[in-house]
């Protein structure tokens, strides 16, 4: 018997509809999902889902002791460090160079380096000490290289340098320790490693902001940012004492790890700089809060614009600070790429 292979009209239309709907469903891709959001206007998230630190972004005007008086462009794409030199000069490091500026902000000289300068300090005879990622270099005022150390190790990430006599102190954020070297780069000692048996609290450095300086009191001062503290050490690495407390309120150090930079005024008071909630503040010689140089609203006008402009903003950016002989505070702004000068308010 001959098999009827003819498709009737009903069968043809039914098959067509079935195939059409299957193809349409497959092509849209989303048709099979059961967890699609319902159509209609979407509601924004409520306040519980907003990270809100507005309450801390306003500085009480009574606490402000300084006024911004000038801005000097650095002409760096990535300005990184600033330090004061002699006779009112100051040095700024960034990109792959260090520039020496006069008190009027005019450039005196430029020193080209092989890599980004991580930290700067100026010592006797106006010698410039530059810490690069894993070694240091010493230059005279004319820019002549006097000394270059060997690499201090593959994990080394230097972020601070200070000099006392013939000893160089280097803050190594990679290994979270301070290295003591002689002028040739020979390591004399290391201290401050967490869990070490040198009697120190141990450095907690979550992000690469690890700074140190020699005070007029003959002590080595180091920021232990993960402990929200500024710590004092003898020059042979013995822990003495520390000051600083965590907290968002103005007298404390905010966030996970602050201060990121600090310097000292001629009278020995401390100037600290914080990231996250950018604040530059003054503490007395014993670590008691004195007042504010500039608060978040003075330092960062538009946080989003600043974040776009600043290459390092993804880890939170801080303003490196230096002081000149007039008691002014010089803040290096990585977002606007300028040196912002804050002068004491007339009392």
């Amino acid at each position: 018997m001959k098999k009827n292979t003819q498709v009737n009209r009903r069968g043809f239309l039914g098959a067509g509809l079935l195939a059409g709907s299957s193809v349409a469903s497959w092509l849209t891709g989303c048709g099979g999902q059961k967890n699609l959001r319902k159509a209609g206007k979407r509601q924004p998230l409520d306040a519980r889902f907003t990270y809100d630190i507005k309450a801390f972004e306003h500085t009480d005007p009574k606490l402000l002791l300084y006024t911004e008086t000038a801005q000097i462009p650095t002409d760096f794409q990535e300005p990184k460090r600033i330090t004061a030199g002699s006779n009112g000069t100051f040095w700024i490091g960034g990109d792959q160079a260090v520039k020496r500026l006069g008190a009027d902000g005019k450039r005196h000289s430029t020193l080209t380096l092989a890599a980004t300068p991580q930290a700067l300090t100026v010592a006797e005879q106006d010698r410039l000490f530059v810490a690069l990622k894993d070694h240091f270099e010493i230059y005279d005022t004319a820019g002549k290289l006097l000394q270059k150390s060997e690499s201090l190790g593959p994990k080394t990430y230097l972020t601070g340098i200070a000099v006392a006599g013939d000893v160089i102190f280097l803050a190594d954020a990679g290994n979270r320790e301070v290295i003591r070297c002689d002028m040739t780069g020979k390591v004399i000692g290391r201290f401050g490693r967490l869990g070490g048996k040198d009697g120190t609290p141990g450095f907690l450095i979550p992000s690469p902001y690890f700074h140190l300086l020699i005070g007029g009191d003959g002590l080595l001062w180091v920021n232990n940012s993960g402990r929200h503290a500024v710590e004092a050490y003898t020059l042979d690495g013995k822990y003495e004492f520390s000051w600083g407390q965590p907290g968002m309120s103005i007298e404390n150090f905010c966030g996970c790890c602050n201060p990121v930079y600090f310097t000292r005024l001629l009278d020995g008071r401390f100037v600290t700089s914080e990231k996250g909630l950018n604040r530059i503040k003054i503490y007395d010689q014993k670590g008691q809060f004195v007042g504010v140089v500039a608060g978040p609203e003075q330092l960062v006008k538009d946080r989003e614009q600043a974040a776009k402009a600043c290459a390092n903003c993804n880890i939170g950016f801080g303003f490196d600070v230096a002081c000149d002989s007039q008691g002014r505070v010089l803040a290096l702004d990585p977002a606007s790429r300028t040196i912002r000068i804050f002068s004491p308010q007339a009392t």
Partner: protein
Amino acid sequence: MNRRNFINGVARVAALLGLGGLAARLLQHAQVAHTVWQIDPWKCTYCGKCATECVLELSAVKCVQFYDICGYCDFCTGYFEPQPNKLSTGAENQLCPTGAIVRKFIEDPYYEYTINEPLCIGCAKCVKGCTLFGNGSFHLQIKHDRCVNCNECSIAKACPANAIHRIPSNKPYLFKTREGKPS
């Protein structure tokens, strides 16, 4: 030409057109399948729209923790409220409104933070806290086990930072690195 022949002819032409359209669409799908949507963590401004703009009821965007750059902080600003009463796991101290971050003691003074993904809605509150103060190891990513890879991503359309774009499907995630933002 009788009616049967006419309908037959029309059906054949329609079938051919349909097949052609289907082939073109398949080709387009094959090309799209080589790319997937992803968030550039360097561009993200943690606005919170990823949680509300996805076509899925529970967004395909989740917070991810990139341990390589995490500071393992005791006071993690992605985990704790900006001004916590105490550095403890008490709900009142936690930043995440859905409790999607787990804090675990590793060794003094380090703590590990992991994301409980089913609880995360991609609001980016923790990402902002971590990035603003810390290293930014928390960041948002589109999870491809959830994303339906729409032709037009509704989150990308709403993103104010233009941070969402298509990337090759053989490298479907974008993580930050210790070296910083690629030039």
